[in-house]
């Protein structure tokens, strides 16, 4: 790590720590931004590094969301009665119960999706190309439809997560969830950065570039694909658990397994920032979130129209993303040695 990078990381860390106090009105937005970055980074492990374009990571996100809330409630109160009572609460979490439940819930929300990913990985990751994309799309929607029919987690009427207990000031809730999501973001980023500096990333790239050749070279591709998916699932589940508490209300198709929103957002953010780079998803998620909030606020009702147009435009005209564009413009910054004669020759070939 050189000096410039160190300054950058410390700057971001300090910004992250002071941001909720400098912009107190945007605490929820900043927390959502952290979650979105986590989702974009985890999608990038599949779509960017491994070349397996999944629509199904929303499955782990929604699973984490339901699990975290269910554990948080179920540890202290009967779950069925809680969901049945809807908005009117006869059960109230004490602060200790709330935080205990949240901690255990987040662990479960991270671990169970990882196990699920490991179990279904062997069957699903054997599919290639568009079959994989459509299959994962089906998985996400099926999970949403099925969870919408299960009574104990609220079926179609939704599931209210435990309200934040009365501790300290009114600001406490926002700060708690902000720092929680910020910690998860740092955790995800450092973990993924560490992973990307090992042989594992090279194996994933080999799978993306030519899976059959990678297999012929003696790499057990299936094992690494499943491990990659499990890493994604772990952080997706964690993000989902926090998001459930932050939103305060879980609905099967509109919040948890929201393939039309979150499921597309994570793909779009990673592509916008640049697939297959470490910083791409971070930049993409930030740009996308700012754009989205601006648009959602000023043109309410037209947001999905804008989203559809945005997908088409980004995919067709900007598939390399911001990082890809920067790389083409300033190759020296990315440590590529540019030979002028070579560059001219390439332009002529084009």
């Amino acid at each position, binding site marked *: 790590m050189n000096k410039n990078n160190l300054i950058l990381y410390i700057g971001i860390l300090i910004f992250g720590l002071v941001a909720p106090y400098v912009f107190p009105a945007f605490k929820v937005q900043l927390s959502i931004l952290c979650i979105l970055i986590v989702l974009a980074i985890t999608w990038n492990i599949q779509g960017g590094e491994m070349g397996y*374009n999944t629509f199904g990571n929303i499955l782990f996100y929604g699973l984490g969301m339901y699990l975290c809330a269910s554990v948080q409630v179920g540890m202290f109160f009967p779950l069925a009665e809680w969901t049945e009572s809807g908005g009117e609460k006869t059960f109230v979490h004490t602060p200790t119960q709330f935080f205990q439940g949240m901690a255990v819930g987040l662990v479960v929300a991270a671990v169970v999706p990882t196990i699920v990913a490991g179990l279904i990985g062997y*069957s*699903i990751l*054997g*599919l290639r*190309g*568009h*079959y994989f*994309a*459509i*299959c994962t*799309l*089906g*998985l996400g*929607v*099926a999970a*949403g*439809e*099925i969870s*919408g*029919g299960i009574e104990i987690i609220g*079926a*179609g009427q939704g599931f209210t997560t435990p309200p934040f207990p009365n501790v300290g000031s009114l600001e406490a809730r926002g700060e708690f969830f902000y720092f929680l999501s910020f910690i998860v973001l740092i955790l995800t980023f450092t973990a993924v950065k560490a992973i990307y500096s090992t042989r594992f990333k090279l194996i994933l790239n080999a799978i993306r570039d030519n899976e*059959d050749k990678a297999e*012929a070279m003696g790499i057990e591709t299936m094992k690494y694909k499943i491990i990659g998916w499990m890493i994604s699932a772990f952080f997706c589940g964690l993000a989902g658990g926090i998001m459930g508490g932050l939103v305060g209300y879980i609905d099967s198709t509109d919040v948890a397994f929201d393939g*039309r929103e979150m499921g*597309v957002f994570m*793909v779009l953010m990673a*592509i916008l920032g640049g697939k297959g780079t470490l910083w791409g998803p971070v930049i993409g998620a930030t740009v996308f979130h700012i754009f989205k909030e601006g648009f959602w606020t000023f043109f309410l*009702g*037209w947001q*999905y*129209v804008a*989203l*559809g*147009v*945005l*997908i*088409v435009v980004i*995919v*067709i005209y900007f*598939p390399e993303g911001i990082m890809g564009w920067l790389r083409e413009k300033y190759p020296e910054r990315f440590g590529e040695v540019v030979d002028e004669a070579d560059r001219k020759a390439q332009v002529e070939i084009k």
Partner: protein
Amino acid sequence: MDFLVFQYPMITVQACLDGILLGVLFALIAYGMALQWGVMNIINIAQGDLVILGGYIAYFMYLYGIHPAWGVIVAPVIMYFVGIAIYKLVINKVVDRDLFISILATFGISILFMQLMNFAFGADVVLANSGYGTTMLFDSNVVLPNSKIFSAFISILFAVCLVIYMKKSKLGRAIRATAQNARAAKILGVDTEKVYAATFGINAALCGVAGALISITFTIHPYMGLPYTIRSFMIVIVAGLGNLPGVAMSGMGLGVFEEFADYILGTEFRIGSVFLLLVLILVYRRFKLSRKREYLK
């Protein structure tokens, strides 16, 4: 409802007949998907939304006092031009590229269409009433709406016409040539760009017919598109590209499966079971294919 299927056999007959009549419609949509998949190598996620749009055309005719059955003729004409417009604006830029790009781009179109239809027609579940009455079979134990029989008949008619058209006409031959080898067809003087546009237009027109029939027999809603896409995708992968009897059979099979899932699991799991079936079929296919994997192509 759970075990009524077994105790009361007439429900089985009812579900089978319903499923077959429904499946014929699915097969028509799947035929359009197979056509453009085979020719352009594109999977169109917006297929279902084109179907729903076709349905709204028939519904609007119904609102303005024209019998919705005429939608079967009007909807494909309008949808043909909608299809050409989509092709010119978006699809022709993704034809030769990575399949995932086409999936994502058509996903964007799907979201766009969904929301525009929601604005234009409202979020209500609507039905164009054809007033065709019902047919009773087996001492009134099995009730079949005539509109379902009508829609199955029209679907078969359109499918047969299209097959004959593809076999005999010049454009049909050009489409088949392009599907076999686009480059060779180009060398031999086929304007592939035009063929692609026509293929997408024909696909959209088929969706329009199916949509008009669905608006008569079932209900339509702006957000109901994706299940139709998934169903047609499923039918195509089960039947294989260019296997017409297979498409018809697997379409009917899917219809029957859905009716039974509806009876046994309950209506709330109907769509979920369709998506789950897709996953199961793909996984089955993966294990079957992994036995004879080819390394050199």
